[in-house]
């Protein structure tokens, strides 16, 4: 049905149906460029990946063999892979509440400030702009058991020094702290954007109605209206946390003894260090299924609760 014909027929339809038709056409048209790009950049490569996951392809090999579901069976039984799943979940469990909560806290505290606001905003946003290549050395020195200032402070308080990046028990929380450091400013900006979209007259109206005190105001107005933003921050933070890779690759390389080997790093090792591309493709698909299920769950649960 060409657009002209559609318009022609629609002119004879009752107004409501015509409106629906326009909505449909506009919707499809607006979403089309994004859809086309999605296809090209994500869907087709995923299909290629799917194909690779059924083979034993190694980069540069001249021939490959079809393996069926062997790679997947191997993945689910692989203790190294299972360990990386656990490590990733621990990391996400630490990063998610703290990165979201602290981002919200800072945003709320800053929203009311006038003179100091721009100073704090820039300060908290700085970590987002940092490049890991340079920051990695900085962190390694700061966290050094005998040379670093952080352990220096611990010693003055009388606490035994901690090898943050080298003790298996401490390495994931330390990487999580660095991840939070990196994300707080990001979430703060998002929450600030959300807060500023709340019309000021609502607050005035509430005050007239007897709503006093910051916490009361927060719970009655701010929090409900921040719903969509909060949901967005939660979903994106958890996805970002799941995708943790850079800090592991540069600072710990999966150590000590594999205690910081997270999912993407384990996949990277398989594909780019051991060159088992077929197996790495299978692992990637398992990873995607995990993350997708997790985020769809979050989205649809939270979406229902924030929709008003």
């Amino acid at each position, binding site marked *: 049905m060409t657009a002209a014909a559609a318009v022609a027929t629609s002119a004879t339809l009752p107004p409501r149906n015509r409106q629906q038709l326009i909505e449909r056409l506009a919707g499809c048209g607006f979403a089309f460029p994004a859809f086309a790009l999605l296809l090209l950049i994500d869907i087709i490569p995923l299909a290629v990946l799917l194909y690779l996951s059924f083979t034993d392809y190694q*980069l*540069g*090999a*001249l021939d490959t063999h079809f393996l069926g579901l062997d790679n997947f069976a191997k993945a689910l039984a692989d203790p190294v892979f299972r360990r990386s799943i656990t490590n990733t979940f621990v990391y996400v469990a630490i990063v998610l509440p703290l990165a979201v909560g602290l981002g919200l806290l800072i945003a709320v505290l800053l929203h009311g400030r006038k003179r100091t606001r721009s100073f704090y905003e820039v300060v908290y946003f700085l970590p987002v702009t940092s490049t890991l290549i340079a920051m990695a*050395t900085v962190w*390694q*020195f700061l966290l*050094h*058991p*005998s*040379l670093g200032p952080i352990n220096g402070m611990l010693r003055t308080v009388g606490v035994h020094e901690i*090898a943050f*990046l*080298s003790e298996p028990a401490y390495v994931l929380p330390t990487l999580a702290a660095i991840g939070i450091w990196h994300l707080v400013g990001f979430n703060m900006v998002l929450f600030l954007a959300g807060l500023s979209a709340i019309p000021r007259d609502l607050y005035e109206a509430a005050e007239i109605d007897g709503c006093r005190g910051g916490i009361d105001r927060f719970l009655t107005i701010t929090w409900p209206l921040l719903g969509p933003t909060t949901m967005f921050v939660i979903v994106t933070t958890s996805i970002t946390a799941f995708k943790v890779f850079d800090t592991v690759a540069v*600072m*710990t*390389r*999966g*150590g*000590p*003894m*594999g205690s910081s080997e997270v999912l993407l790093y384990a996949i990277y*090792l398989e594909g*780019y*260090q*051991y*060159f088992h591309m077929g197996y790495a493709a299978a692992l990637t698909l398992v990873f995607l299924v995990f993350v997708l299920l997790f985020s769809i769950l979050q989205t649809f649960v939270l979406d229902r609760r924030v929709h008003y």
Partner: protein
Amino acid sequence: MKRMATALGSILLAAIVMATGARAEVVTLDVLYAFPAFAKFHEPIAQEFMKRHPDIRIQYRAPAPTYDDGHQTMMREAVTNQLPDVYYSGFHLLTELTHTLEKRKQIVDLGPLLAAEGAEFRKANYSDRILALGKVDGKLYGLPFNASTPIMMYNADLVKKAGGDPDHMPDTWDGIMALAKKIKASGGADVAGIAYNVNDWPDVWLYHAMILQAGGTVVDGKSVPLGGPDLGVKVLDRFRNFVSEAGMPLINWDQSRQQFIAGRIGIFFDTPARLRQVTDLIGDKFTLRSATFPIDNKAKGGLPTGGNAALITTHDAKKQKAAWEFIKFETGPEAQKIVVETTGYLPTNLRAPGSEFLGPFYDKNPNFRTVALQMERSVPWQGYPGGNSVRIWRAQREIITSVMRGDIAPKAGYDQLMKETATLMH
């Protein structure tokens, strides 16, 4: 009329000569290397080469971050026909890369090219041990450009304080351990006697070094004895003692190096490639000295050689000729002098340590000479059979770290090592 014809003729001739002269082509070589910081010697060497060969232009591609990334890039580019003309492959990846490229006929056998230079040239410039590093299946595919074997660096002040003699360091491991223990006792709080970072090394280098120096065998055809039950356990025991008796901190290799630089570790084992960096960062905080790696088995002891070799991966005959000239220059004494002065690597050219090249530099900076003193101990660095070397090392490293932490005993550790390695080799 005749004069005009002659004049026209000569103009025409001149024009032809100029035209052909202008077409005396400049050959451009596309070169790829790993480790961007190596620009500090690649660029000056290329400049020098281009001065002497105005008809050859060297163009560097964006360098790969590590040997593994470079290897990846080469594999990808082999498949899409985008290979550079010259590439520097890490020794430990040379076999795999060569096999892949050979199947596709994308690599040049350098043997005939070297033979064409004459036996005199070869004997004067390259030792057989060095050339062996670039050989795969008996054929020379890579000309070794950078080479290194592990060296021992030490804090002369801490050694003196412990009663040792910085000019005569022990050359056996028992001797080193004794000294390390004394350094720990006399150095004060937070001072470690020794650091041997096998627990965080990115590859098997330091692990194999400890086995090979005692004359042990790591890989024997298809089997991997890892030194055998006696030596194998002794090595793990030694690693554990570094921690339990000489106070070695179990931290990652960057942090360990930082601690040595700050003057808080007595004896430090590292790659000579870092010597320049370490020297600059220490400054005059303490006296930095270096000595050859302790060798227990003076007759058979060897050291695994790290580094890279230059490969030619172009089909074009003109480019192949130009590339050969280039890598010949690069492995020549002038270029190797630049490499050593900016890093600390072992020069791969026999003439380089001589008095017209590195002699004066070595006299002023004796620490840089150390690695050259152990050149005859170089042996090729072997991967584990089966093509799974990287994964096997990661598993081995975890077990070694457990032993060093004291979580498992050396004997149990060795058994686990053998078991894991055997499993992963299939």
